[in-house]
């Protein structure tokens, strides 16, 4: 199956290991992955700060770049949420009804990673191995915008050697919220502090989520506390194999 990878601007620049993991994982599962070089950003930061006019060219670019693909995969619930639930609204608000229809149609084949694996490829056991104590934080946009439900957990449960522990108050927002994290920094940190104490109470060594933006916030707090708990994107856990584990042991 031919799949276009939408890396997202944030992962591309700050967390390249995540899209690399998606490439390894999907190729291992027999997909032909392409990375259209014309891609940049879904525009979510502009949209959610109220700058629809600035988001519009990015909406159009996204459609131009990905229109010819039958399946697009992104390792971000939040960016996929923006594409599927906001792009048509932005086009319509900016007086571009034809573009709105075009993107409403095109966005249906844009999938968040766990949706693509479970719904499109029909796999839950992706052959991964990750012998660590892990807890999973369901990010708000994957949970309540995309409704991925327990798909990420189905995938994690099938990972060899994983010790999956429950996160208390898992479905509560971590407090990142895009520009909310700086516009309302005190409230954002208060929410994050509660999330982090739940993470620590879970006893996990690694917090896994489907969005590196939320993980940057959670991880930033964990690191400041010198907690020793790591954050890791779902894609990287699912891409890990027994070979990787052996290599890590050898180091």
């Amino acid at each position, binding site marked *: 199956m031919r799949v276009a990878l939408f*890396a997202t*601007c944030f*992962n*591309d*620049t*700050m967390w*390249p*290991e995540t*899209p*690399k993991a998606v*490439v390894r994982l999907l190729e291992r599962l027999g997909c032909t992955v392409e*990375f259209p*070089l*014309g*891609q*940049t*950003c879904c*525009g979510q*930061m*502009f*949209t*959610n*700060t*109220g*700058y*629809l006019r*600035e988001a519009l060219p990015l909406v159009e*670019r996204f459609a131009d770049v990905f229109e010819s693909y039958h399946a697009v995969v992104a390792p971000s619930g939040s960016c996929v949420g923006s594409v599927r639930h*906001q792009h048509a609204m932005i086009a319509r*608000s900016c007086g571009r009804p034809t573009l709105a229809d075009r993107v409403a149609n095109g966005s249906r084949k844009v999938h968040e990673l766990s949706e693509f694996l479970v719904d499109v490829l029909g796999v839950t056991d992706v052959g991964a191995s990750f012998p660590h104590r892990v807890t999973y934080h369901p990010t*708000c*946009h994957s*949970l*309540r*915008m995309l409704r991925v439900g327990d798909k990420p957990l189905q995938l994690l449960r099938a990972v060899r050697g994983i010790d999956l522990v429950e996160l208390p108050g898992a*479905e*509560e*927002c971590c*407090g990142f*919220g895009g*520009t*909310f994290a*700086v*516009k*309302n*920094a*005190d*409230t954002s*940190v*208060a*929410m*994050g*502090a509660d999330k982090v104490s739940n993470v620590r109470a879970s006893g996990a060594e690694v917090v896994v989520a489907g969005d590196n933006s939320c993980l*940057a*916030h959670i*991880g*930033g*707090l964990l*690191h*400041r506390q010198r907690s020793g708990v790591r954050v890791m994107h779902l894609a990287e856990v699912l891409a890990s194999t027994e070979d990787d584990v052996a290599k890590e042991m050898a180091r």
Partner: protein
Amino acid sequence: MSGTFVGMPGFPPRFPVAARSALEDSQLRSNLRHATHTIRDKRGRVVAEVADWEELRVAGAAIKDEVLTHLDHYLVELEESLTRAGAQVHWARDAAEANRIVTSLVRATGAEEVVKVKSMATQEIGLNEALEEAGIDAWETDLAELIVQLGHDQPSHILVPAIHRNRAEIKEIFAREMGKVGEPAPDDLTAEPRVLAEAARRHLREKFLRARVAISGANFAVASTGTLVVVESEGNGRMCLTLPQTLISVVGIEKIVPTPTDLDVFLQLLPRSSTGERMNPYTSTWTGVTPGDGPQEVHVVLLDNGRTDALADTVGRQALRCIRCSACLNVCPVYERVGGHAYGSVYPGPIGAVLNPLIRGTASAVDRSLPYASSLCGACFDACPVRIDIPELLVHLRARVVDEKRAGHGRFRPSGEELAMRAGSWLFSDSDRWESAQRASQLGGRMLGGKLLGERDTLGRIPGLAAWSDARDAPVPPTETFRSWWKKHEQHDKEPEQ
């Protein structure tokens, strides 16, 4: 634009500023956390019992949308039904007009005091303060409203206005204040809920039996019959609605349902969403005047106060479906940490963050900051019994705030934020430009992660980025972007196997 008043005097500060002092109050944080989680869990349990909850939500939204789409028709129908049933109908464009009408109605009876049923509409217009100015005492009879009134406080929740207070604080307020305005609290008052409730009962009973005028709002107004409905838990409302000679109800124009049958849907949705009960203890309905039974003089003040401004906003009008259940407050992670006062209105929480800018407009600093007082986590939409898409409305109102700022640029230069957004958009509109910007980030990563700074992988406090870095470390940018890696990876794939 609008100068609609929503029950908080003065000029409240921007949300982040007000939030900061609330966040520092650890007693408040713990009161709020306990109370919101208790109601949240209770609601979750009773909603899960209803197999057709989603159908009820859809039906509730559809009934409200029908009313809002044909509000002109339903308002006239309601007025005709009320008049036919012996009630007198008054129309109020704004808070000042509503207060004038109510004050003159009370004066005409010669009464110097009124008893009040818990009502968001009368809080919204600041009726108690207006009556006080006219020399009329207004006694709140809902237990939580009584706590707020006796404590010279502001409500911080729609359903549980004293949610920010714990039992010990309530005991202090009762002991100190009750005697100043009526029956004092007993000397052996404790912080036990039963004892506190008994003190309130005694204090209020004196007022119920004396009052000649009552003031209420209404949860619903049935257009076809002119029936008003009040849904409550304590029975104080029933006392106010039946004992006095005169009853004045202030009703927002969006409270209409077309027929009594529509109550079937809302009387299932409201109690489960608000108090987490299958059914509320008291539901009072009255249709104008019943000769010889209950109030013989019945007035209904139909209140606009910015609602038609919200109605004119084709995206925003769904906020007028709100039945004031406060389920969105109880699930909101922002409200849970900050409480209600930071919203600068009697309508706090997620619904307040959209309703206030819709009915008051975005002229004030607090109203411009409210649409941003959310992480867009979406818990409010899932909890809303009438399916108000609050996250969608928040984004819509953020765009309105930005567009209004842009329109004001004739006088001011664009803000730093707007310049940054424009630059970002320009950068992302071309992948070559974006790649050049990434090279700068890689260079930064090489410098920051280099030997000079001790090969660090994270950054601590960063000057100029205090909002992020005061409490959170930030990663050092990686030395190779995904895009650069991909180009090599793809090249490697194309080379023939060795």
